[in-house]
């Protein structure tokens, strides 16, 4: 038993190096996802029908098809289609960001719409312009209901980023697979990877809890 553990240590180190890869993909993608999602959310709440429909169509498509297929199309499909060959990293970040943007836009839109209508009316009655209304009255109030859902989205991305292993990135998942193949055992490497994912998620959610408490009124 002890010898087994010592023998596994190098593998353990090898697998855990994947944590930074996984985090790199999820954090960068959630940032871009947030930007895309915010823009889409605004398009959904403004008074221009064409833009609103376009934003809804985008969300519908990216939420309605598997992320793995989106990733595959971007990495393997685009070169044949328009001759655009992307690196594994860019393909991954683009796929995750586009997909996450769809979810984030719904989160933000719901947050904006959750703010009491009376707030908008009071602001209108005081002559506050639409831009200031959004920035100073609605968004600060929406943010409190948006935050927990946004953290969920980050957690989802951390876990779903394991799909990047399919196109060859050496993330947590892929490393665990490599060790499994080398040692002919699946249990320990996969358990190690699972534990690493779980720890990351725990850390993220406890940070979120702290933030939520500080934002509460």
């Amino acid at each position: 038993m002890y010898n087994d553990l010592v023998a596994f240590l190098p593998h353990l180190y090898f697998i855990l190096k994947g944590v930074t890869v996984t985090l790199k993909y999820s954090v960068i993608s959630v940032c871009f996802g947030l930007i895309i999602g915010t823009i889409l959310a605004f398009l959904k709440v403004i008074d221009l029908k064409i833009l609103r429909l376009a934003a809804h169509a985008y969300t519908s498509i990216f939420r309605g098809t598997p992320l793995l297929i989106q990733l595959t199309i971007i990495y393997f499909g685009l070169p044949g289609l328009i001759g655009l060959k992307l690196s594994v990293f860019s393909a991954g970040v683009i796929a995750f960001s586009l997909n996450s943007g769809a979810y984030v836009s719904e989160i933000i839109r719901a947050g904006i719409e959750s703010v009491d209508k009376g707030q908008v009316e009071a602001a209108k009655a005081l002559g506050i312009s639409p831009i200031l209304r959004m920035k100073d009255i609605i968004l600060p109030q929406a943010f409190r209901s948006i935050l927990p859902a946004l953290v969920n989205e980050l957690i989802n991305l951390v876990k779903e980023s394991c799909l990047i292993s399919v196109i060859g990135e050496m993330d947590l998942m892929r490393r665990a697979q490599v060790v499994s193949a080398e040692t002919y055992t699946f249990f320990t490497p996969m358990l190690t990877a699972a534990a690493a994912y779980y720890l990351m998620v725990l850390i993220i959610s406890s940070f979120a809890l702290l933030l939520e408490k500080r934002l509460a009124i």
Partner: protein
Amino acid sequence: MIVLEKVTKKFIDNTAIKNINLTFDKKETTVIIGPSGSGKSTLIRCINNLENPTSGSVVINGKKLTRRNRGKLCFKIGMVFQQFNLFPHMSVLENLTYSPLNVLHTSKIETQGKARKLLDTFGILEKADSSPSKLSGGQKQRVAICRALMMDPETMLFDEPTSALDPEIVKDIIEIINNLKNQMQMIVITHHIKFAKIIADRIIFMDKGLVLADQPANEFFAKPASHRAKLFLANVGDLM
């Protein structure tokens, strides 16, 4: 001067107000009464374009009000709501100073001084730095009135300002509104007939989206111009 010309507002399943013609030109206090669903709120909300009329027009100081120019035409029209609608993420003082600072671009020190003075006259200066959630209903409505007054309105709209309050506090708010009388034009919706009797110079009685009576207050209570209004007064008279 506010003129409503043939204003009609339709919602998906009903017509809230029909072909309303009204003029508000004096510094008087007009009270709008009538049963629930008679279109009182819709009417008052058309005046500052919280509702956009389906047809007809609202003319403010000679200019036709639209969604586009509502900011320019309506910032001198203050409004107080039944549910207060204070900004919960700002302190009481910030609630008062936000629009003067950001809409009228007044100086910060002056505006804060003015806000504190106003809070003082309303007896809630010690709440200046509190969050609105820490206030009682009556205090919230005072803050809401102060917030509207900060914009130096020429007209104040009150949409059932006392309906969400404890009966004991209603009196305080009525007194406050009565003290504002003659300083500006006021249009008030209320269910409290006693309140109407105290403050009104002019009464508008509405039912089913129509204006059935529009008379000086003392004349209205002595001899309402509409039979429906007489019935209404008889029915609610003893209660409120």
